[in-house]
Every structure is written in C-alpha cells, then in structure tokens.
C-alpha cells in the first residue's frame, strides 16, 4: 500500500468519526501542550533567576558573616563567637593583592517618610562600588558619592518604585527623606530594570554604608562583595581572604565564602530538577492520552471486524492490517501533537506578551520528548489492538466475530 493511499484511507476513517477523533486529538494535544507549557515555564523561571543573579558578574566573591560547617569538625555554635564583619575588615581586604574593589552591604527595614507619605522600606547601606559591580545606573541625578567607607553623609539614591510611591510624578532631586530618625537628601534615582528577584533595588533606599550603620546601630555588615582583578584569581584568593579574616578575628575563620558560580550552580540544579519534575508530571497526561488511544483502537478493531475480514479476503496480509491500524493511531497522534505544540507555544508567547520580563523558552529536550513520547505512547498502546486485528482469522472476521472459537 502506498503511503499517500494509506494516508487517505486513514483520513477517511478519522473524519468519518469526527467526535471520537476530536476527543483523541484533544487528549493528545492537551498532553503535549502541558509538557511544553510547564517545562517552558520552568525553563523561563530558571533563566530569569540566572539572569538576575548573573548581574553581579562571576569575578565577585560574596562573604557572609558566620561559618557554615560542611565538612565535619566541631558543631557550629550558632551566633555565639561569631564576630561581626566590619568596615575595617573591608578595608583590610581591599589592600589584599589581587582584589580590585570591595563593596559592603548593610540591609534593614525602616520607616521612610517623604512628601507627607510614610512607607516601610528596605534601606540598603553600601558604597558606589556595588553599583559598579551590579552595573546599576542612575536614571536621574547621580549614584552615591565616592567617600571613605566610614564617612556618613545625609544623601540617598532611591529605586524607581520608591520614587513612584513617595513622589509620584513630582521632581525628586534635592528633596529630603526621613529614614528612621535621620534625614537624607535625594541625589539620584536608579534606572528601572523592572521586576527583579534577589536583591531588589527598585524598592530600596540606598545610603552610604556608614550612615546605614548609624541608622541601624550596628558595626556588623550583612555582606561583603569582593571583586577580584582577574577571574583566575578567585580560587587563589579564597584562602588568602580566609587567612586574613582569621588573623583579624582572633584566630576564628568565622565567615563563609560564596562564589557567584557556586550560588548559580545550586539554583541551576534545583530549577532544572524542578523543570524536569514538572515536565514529568505533564507527561503523565500523555500516558492518559495513550490509554484513550488504546481504547479507541480497540473499539475501532471491534467495530471494523468485518472490514478486516474483507480486507483479508481481498488479499491484505497480517502485516498490512497491522500497519493500517497502527498508522491510524499514529496519524491521530501526530495531528494531536502538532496541535499541542502550536497551542503550547501560543500560550507561552501569550504569557510572554503579558509579562515581557519573563523569558520564554521550551528546552529542546522537552519539545522532542513530548512529541516522541506521544508517538511512543500511541504506538505502544495501539500495538496490541492492532495485532489483535491482524491475527483475526478471515472467515471469522467476515462474520463479525472477534474471538476465535475452535
């Protein structure tokens, strides 16, 4: 039988029973679309997070106060004995050969008042270096001034969202804000990078680190970012940093060093696993579609018993009858899968259109996997009914009997 003939023969069958066909197409399409949609969203989330965290650059080391024990040793004494990470530590680190810049970070929540409005906002204390590391630019005015780290100044840079919520459309440069019990003058507004995960600056008020320490009445830093002069220096610098801190903290190595890569690696692994899991769940719906296909093929076989007998009387071989029924299921699946791919992409692009920040991309493995799984499921589930049809003795089939009775 020629392929175009087979195609036409099957098409006649499928259009002849359009309701049955529609239901199967729907089941397959939903299964394929679900796989694409869920993995597409998972992959989107992964890229989104990676993009966000990548802003820091991979030549940056992150120092956290306190040690996270990962390799045996004494049990960590939570909090106790942990010394603050201080601005003096930051300055000592800056003098370490191979270090380009150091940016301190103090973060706290406080009442911010301006223009007669009150908001509970994140206040970030840092230096100009952080803006450079994160490639943050000012949309208006300037970033923090270049100051010695321990100099407090009554100035601030505000995020785009803060500007909107406190000042609406009014001019802001030179206006005064009250953060907690002190006042500061707005000297700049950050450019709006839209929604962002991680350390979100658009809803923060950024002040010099020393001002923030006074505001929150602390000596300790929340984080220290160390940018090295060259990527290759990251690994050799780790022990030097630990040694330096140890010598400054009375022999305690009470910090944790994280690289951008290791952080991303963890995220990447988790998110990839999530995408995989979500894709697998969606794949179950494809198996359900497969069971539907099996039922339909079974029904098709029993409804068409005398037709099978006829085909055999006309000289069709077992192989031909088998192929006829398999190809019917396969064709239905292919059409369904195509519809599913189209629907899945349409929905993803629709989502992207509504929320442009969210990257849309279906991993190739998910696309191929979904289509191949649909085909595989159809073949596996149609195989038995098709074989049953093929093995029917012609004389019994002509009489419309599906079970051989000897």
């Amino acid at each position: 039988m020629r392929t175009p003939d087979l195609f036409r023969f099957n098409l006649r069958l499928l259009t002849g029973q359009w309701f049955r066909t529609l239901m199967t197409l729907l089941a397959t399409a939903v299964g394929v679309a679900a796989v694409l949609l869920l993995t597409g969203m998972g992959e989107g989330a992964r890229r989104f997070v990676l993009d966000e965290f990548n802003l820091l650059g991979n030549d940056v080391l992150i120092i956290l106060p306190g040690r996270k024990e990962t390799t045996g040793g004494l049990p960590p004494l939570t909090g106790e004995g942990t010394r603050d990470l201080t601005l003096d530590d930051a300055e000592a680190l800056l003098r370490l050969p191979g270090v380009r810049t150091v940016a301190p970070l103090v973060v706290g929540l406080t009442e911010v008042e301006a223009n007669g409005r009150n908001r509970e906002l994140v206040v970030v204390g840092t230096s100009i270096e952080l803006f450079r590391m994160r490639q943050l630019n000012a949309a208006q005015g300037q970033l923090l001034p270049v100051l010695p780290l321990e100099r407090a100044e009554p100035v601030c840079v505000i995020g785009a969202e803060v500007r909107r919520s406190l000042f609406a459309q009014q001019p802001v440069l030179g206006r005064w804000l009250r953060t907690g019990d002190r006042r500061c003058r707005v000297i700049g507004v950050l450019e709006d990078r839209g929604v962002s995960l991680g350390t979100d600056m658009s809803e923060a008020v950024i002040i010099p680190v020393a001002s923030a320490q006074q505001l929150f009445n602390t000596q300790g830093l929340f984080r220290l970012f160390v940018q090295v002069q060259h990527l290759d220096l990251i690994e050799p610098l780790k022990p030097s940093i630990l040694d330096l801190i140890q010598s400054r903290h009375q022999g305690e190595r009470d910090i944790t060093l994280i690289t951008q890569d290791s952080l991303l690696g963890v995220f990447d692994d988790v998110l990839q696993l999530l995408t995989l899991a979500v894709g697998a769940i969606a794949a179950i719906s494809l198996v359900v579609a497969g069971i539907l296909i099996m039922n339909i093929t079974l029904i098709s076989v029993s409804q068409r018993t005398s037709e099978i007998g006829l085909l055999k009387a006309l000289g069709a071989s077992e192989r031909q009858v088998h192929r006829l029924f398999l190809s019917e299921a396969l064709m239905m699946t292919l059409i369904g899968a195509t519809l599913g791919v189209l629907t899945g992409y349409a929905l993803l692009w629709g989502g992207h259109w509504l929320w442009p920040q969210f990257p849309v991309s279906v991993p190739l493995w998910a696309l191929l996997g979904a289509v191949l799984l649909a085909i595989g499921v159809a073949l596996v589930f149609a195989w038995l009914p098709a074989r049953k049809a093929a093995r029917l003795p012609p004389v019994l089939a002509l009489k419309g009997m599906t079970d051989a009775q000897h």
Partner: protein
Amino acid sequence: MIRLQQLCKCYQLGDEPVQALDHVDLEIGAGEYLSVMGPSGSGKSTLLNMLGLLDTPDSGRYWLDDIEVSALGEEARAAERSRRIGFVFQAYHLIERLSARENIELPLVLTGNAPDERRARVDELLQRLGLDRHADHLPNQLSGGQRQRVAIARAVIRKPALLLADEPTGNLDSHSGQGVIELLEELNGEGITLVMVTHDPAMGKRARRRLWMQDGKLIKDEQDAHA
C-alpha cells in the same frame, strides 16, 4: 485448476462437533461454471471459504494451480488470495465510508498500484457494469443490485482466475438478481472460473456443472453433457 483431496473441517457448536466438510474430493478445471446447492448448514459456505483460502482445513489437501496451498502459511495464503481469487458475498461487504470507485479500487490500493493505472482500470469496469454515473456515490446511495455490481467489480479488478460467489443474489429481488447472475456468467464467458453457492434451484440450474451437498458431504455432481 483446483484439486481437493479428502478435505475435512469440523466446527465446535457449543459442545457438539459439526462436520462442516466431510472428506470432500473435488476437481475443478479452468473456466468451469459450477453451482453449489444444498440445504442450509450443509457446508456450502465452508467449502467456498476453503476454496478461497479464507479458512483452513483440519485435514486433507488442496492444490490451486499446482501449488499445494493447504501447506502454506497465512501470509502466503493472503498473497495467493490477492493474486488468484475474487470474492462476492451475499452481504456485499462494501466499506460504507468509501465511494463506489474507492471500493472497487481497494484491491489495487492494497497491492500498491499507481493511481493512474487504478483509475484507468476502474473507469473501464464502471463503464462496463453501467455504474459510471455512480462512481462517486457511497454504498448507502446505491440499490442492492448496484451494490452487488460494485462488489463484483471489486472482485474482478485484479483479474483473478477464480471467482467465488456465496449466494450473490440472496439479498436481491429476482430482477436485480437476474442481472447479477448474467454479469457473473458474462465474466465466466471470458474465461474466469466461477463457483457460485445458491439455494435457488432455478439459479443453480443455469450452471454447466452442479454440486449438491448435505451434512458436509458432496452427494451429487452433475455435468451438462454438451459442456
């Protein structure tokens, strides 16, 4: 052309065995016109199905054109059916979703003939059977006589040597039945071997050779002297 030797077939009806064919010996020459008559349940259809390789005997041997087809496997039998045998059934067995033309060309589709070649052969047959106006009609738009003509066209489209008809007029009124019989006889006149099962003695008498069956046995084999 056909030689049956001690052919037996036993069916189990409930827990009672039925001897549908009981040691049948038969020889049929090429171009013969046979009718098979006998009471209902005497084994006529079973015999025809055996001849048409649709059924397998329990014992005995069957030669078709010097090939011992009783020794062949199912796939080889399918090939022989396709090459040598045409079937006409009482119930037409047309595929309802296919047009008259598509039903007729089905054997050619199954063997993978090219569409152009198929079209030419189907057109020729349609014309000859007076069905050209009905080529694109579905079976349910045709009368019984027309349906049986379509079925006959389908049976002979591959020019088989043997045409088997199981009560081809059983579902037809006498007028269209007459037409169908005449068509079959015309085909026989062109050389095809025709074996026709019928329970109508008037129809059966038209054949040059007449078989009677009872309880699975051939009880009478009558041949016109001037054949």
